[in-house]
């Protein structure tokens, strides 16, 4: 499908569907490493202007303020087949940017929340966000060298996850491990969609802005 002739009467190519999965987690949880390990291209970074309703009320009028901020996003790509290309976006870790996520999440299939067991609380904002927005996610425990190994059950309890949310182990440095975590997410999304047809799959996805 790669053609680059300069012919003026180029037929309209059948373009693949571009799909999006978010990689979230606290600062230093391994998001950039994860995206780099699974991507078929050298991961790229761009800055995107995102806007959203700040959780902090405007002190002047007490109304939620619409704020725009530029955030840096890492992204990578996986060509699944000629009709589906998956893009991974490593999301800004800083908690103060959470209100901007709405825009980033529009159209996302789901999310992998990376958890570092040394700083488990860092992944709480991501978990809260996806739970509240009804976006399917899994928690992938990134196993760092020398870190204490917890069982999936211990992590589930510590984060306060419902029984339906899968907890998997992964090594964000390894392609196979990261790809396995993505497969676990999509399997979870498929299973959730299949067993609960009445539930809005993701009520917030919208048209791209």
């Amino acid at each position, binding site marked *: 499908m*790669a053609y680059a002739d*300069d012919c003026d009467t180029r037929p309209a190519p059948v373009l693949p569907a571009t*799909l999006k999965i978010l990689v979230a987690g606290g600062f230093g949880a391994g998001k950039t490493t994860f995206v780099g390990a699974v991507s078929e291209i050298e991961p790229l970074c761009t800055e995107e202007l995102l806007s959203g309703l700040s959780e902090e009320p405007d002190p002047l009028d007490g109304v939620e303020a619409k704020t725009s901020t530029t955030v840096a996003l890492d992204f990578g790509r996986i060509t*699944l087949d000629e009709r*589906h290309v998956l893009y991974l976006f490593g999301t800004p870790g800083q908690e103060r940017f959470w209100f901007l996520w709405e825009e980033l999440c529009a159209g996302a299939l789901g999310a992998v929340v990376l958890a570092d067991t040394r700083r488990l609380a860092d992944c709480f904002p991501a978990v809260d966000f996806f739970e509240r927005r009804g976006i399917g996610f899994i928690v992938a425990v990134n196993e760092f060298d020398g870190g204490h190994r917890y069982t999936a059950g211990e992590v589930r309890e510590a984060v306060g996850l419902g029984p339906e949310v899968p907890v998997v182990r992964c090594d964000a440095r390894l392609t196979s491990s990261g*790809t396995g975590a993505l497969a676990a997410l999509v399997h979870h999304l*498929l299973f959730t969609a299949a067993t609960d047809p009445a539930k809005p799959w*993701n009520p917030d996805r919208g048209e791209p802005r």
Partner: protein
Amino acid sequence: MRARAAYGMGAPRDTPWLDDSAGRVMRPYTASGGRTRPAAALDLLSLVTATGVRPRGPLGAEHSLALRLCAGSAAVTVAEVAGQLRLPAVVVKVLLSDLMEFGAVTAQAPRFPGGGYVAADDQNLLRAVLDGLRRRL
């Protein structure tokens, strides 16, 4: 199936506003003439295709580079153009929407799955993604 990976060789390290030692030598929004609102609605995952139409009149360096990236493969996402050019996405959206006005590129918005409720084709989509990921394991 070949991955759409063939971009202009080494292009990102060779842009006029980046110097290896000095870093960015031009303010990024200069490329868009200070504009931050693209005329066309573009998503990070919109696919941009070069039409083969050459814009009349001279293009700026940044417009030319963006167009070259689009022409280098069947289609390229806005995010990838931004990443390759190392420019903020909003600047690249302005450049690309200029190129759309010239007729030099067309853009296809991402067709996000869903629309509220799970449809049969959403499940087929997820199944295709899962199969594609498993083939890589």
